[in-house]
């Protein structure tokens, strides 16, 4: 359990550190592509937690355990996941496109990181580490 928390924090630290690095250095495609990769990977990490939540037994039944899945929470997770998927996917496409302006790719990476942070706020509340 502790390991899971450490892994999540580490994944988000990589994302944040990459963002800070991008903001203070001249734009370089290697750094920008790693920033996009870190954001998309952090999104995958959060998806793993969201899927684990979705695999809990359903709430609201006489036999439901205390640790269960709420249908409304699942909908919120799916919605946040879609937003993060779109933003991190756009960042990926930006850094993979040949001849793209690095500053345009960098802006896409920053947007991707914000979407991942929004998704994390929801998984922080409902992830299986509770």
């Amino acid at each position, binding site marked *: *359990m502790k*390991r*899971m928390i450490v*892994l*999540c924090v*580490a*994944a988000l630290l*990589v994302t944040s550190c990459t963002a800070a690095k991008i903001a203070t250095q001249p734009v370089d*495609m*290697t750094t920008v*592509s*790693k920033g*996009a*990769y*870190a954001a*998309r*990977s952090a*999104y*995958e*990490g959060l*998806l*793993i*937690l*969201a*899927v*684990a939540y*979705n*695999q*809990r*037994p*359903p709430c609201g039944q006489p036999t439901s*355990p*205390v*640790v269960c899945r709420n249908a409304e929470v*699942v909908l919120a*997770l*799916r919605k946040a*996941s879609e937003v993060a*998927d779109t933003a991190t996917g756009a960042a*990926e496409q930006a*850094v*993979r496109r040949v001849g793209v302006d690095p500053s345009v790719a960098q802006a896409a990476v920053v947007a991707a990181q914000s979407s991942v942070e929004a998704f994390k706020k929801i998984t922080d509340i409902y992830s*299986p580490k509770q």
Partner: protein
Amino acid sequence: MLAVIGLIQEIITLAPVLVKTGADLAGLWGKVDEVMSANRVVGDADWDALDAQIAALKADLAKDPGQ
């Protein structure tokens, strides 16, 4: 006594999910570490592998696992 049995049932229900989650996260972290420490632009193979894993997880999140 019933409360303890209920708690044990919960742990049994959740344990496989948590072990799998921990293993999945550890695997992901190993890959991220490898890509981040490489002195190169992220390659197509790295992106394609990541996208395939995300697609599979999205399909799992879209599923209603039932009871």
